[in-house]
């Protein structure tokens, strides 16, 4: 190798950043070239002087101050409801999905909500201020009327039990 090839790579050579092959070639050149050897020694001397410069000790309490600052930054999550956290998680996951997958995920979430509402309606129907007769008949809508007089047709209807099914031969 020539000096013009070696000198630009002396830093990498000293730092051990060259391949074994290239390091060997440079070492062979240095063994026979006093000029390049002087450059190497000068470089090593500067590195030695630099490395003797001591570090300043870490200030007392630095870690504690950093952690205190971090605690101030963290938003209070105690008031976030489980539904809120679920929504937050879902939003975060959505952001990482490709567009089409994101669309499908939103559609699936909406469908799940709709099914939940419909099933909920079946299990827990809305309270319509239901009125039930003594015979168990649904009197919804009749609450607007005053109570039937005791000997009226209405009272007689209300007192009549529900008719049996046709299969049972309700009409005789």
């Amino acid at each position, binding site marked *: 190798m020539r000096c013009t090839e070696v000198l630009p790579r002396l830093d990498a050579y000293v730092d051990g*950043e060259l391949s074994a092959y290239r390091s060997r070639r440079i070492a062979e050149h240095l063994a026979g070239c006093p000029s390049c050897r002087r450059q190497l020694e000068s470089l090593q*001397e500067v590195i030695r002087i*630099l490395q003797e410069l001591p570090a300043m000790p870490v*200030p007392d309490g630095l*870690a504690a101050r950093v952690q205190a600052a*971090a605690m101030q930054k*963290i938003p209070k999550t105690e008031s976030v409801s489980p539904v809120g956290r679920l929504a937050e998680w879902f939003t975060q996951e959505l952001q990482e999905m490709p567009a089409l997958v994101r669309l499908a995920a939103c559609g699936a979430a909406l469908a799940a909500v709709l099914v939940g509402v419909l099933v909920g309606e079946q299990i827990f129907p809305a309270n319509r201020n239901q009125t039930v007769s003594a015979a168990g008949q649904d009197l919804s809508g009749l609450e607007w009327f005053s109570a039937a007089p005791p000997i009226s047709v209405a009272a007689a209807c209300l007192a009549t039990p529900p008719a049996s099914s046709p299969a049972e031969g309700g009409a005789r």
Partner: protein
Amino acid sequence: MKRTDEERMLAVGKGDLDAFSDLVLAYQRPAWNVAHRFLRDPAEAEDVVQNAFLKILDAAPRYRPTASFRTYLYQVVTRLCIDHTEKMRPEYTDNLPEVADPSAGLGEDFAAREEKDAVRSALDSLLPTQRMAVILRHYEGLSYTEIGLAIGVSAKAVEGLLGRARSALQTRLAPLKKD
């Protein structure tokens, strides 16, 4: 079982503040060393260290261990140091205010302190990226690739930065060389 730093960082992303504390304790020294050697002012260095860890905390939910946490930390600290210098400096000057060196012992002789001051002054005279490359190489032991990741340049560019920095330092530190 002891967690790796990358596992700790992933845990921080899920809200594990104990993992964050572990990382702060483990890495406050290298963060401080880089910031203080670069900025020289203890108050500014502490600001940078604090901001670095807060930025890491902010980014934790998005962290992916594509590189080691150590490299990531150096990247954040380096960026903050260089940005800080860019904001503060009007121009480069050799006439920097003297900053008291708390590491200097009372028994330290004058010549040793003069040498230290000369080295610090020589480092301060370098361009920010050259100075940071020297600090990361000689005081933190980073490879050219790691330095490149921290500064945002290629490993080949790091070789060039170090070459120019050392050449400038050889000139300034020539009076200190042993015969």
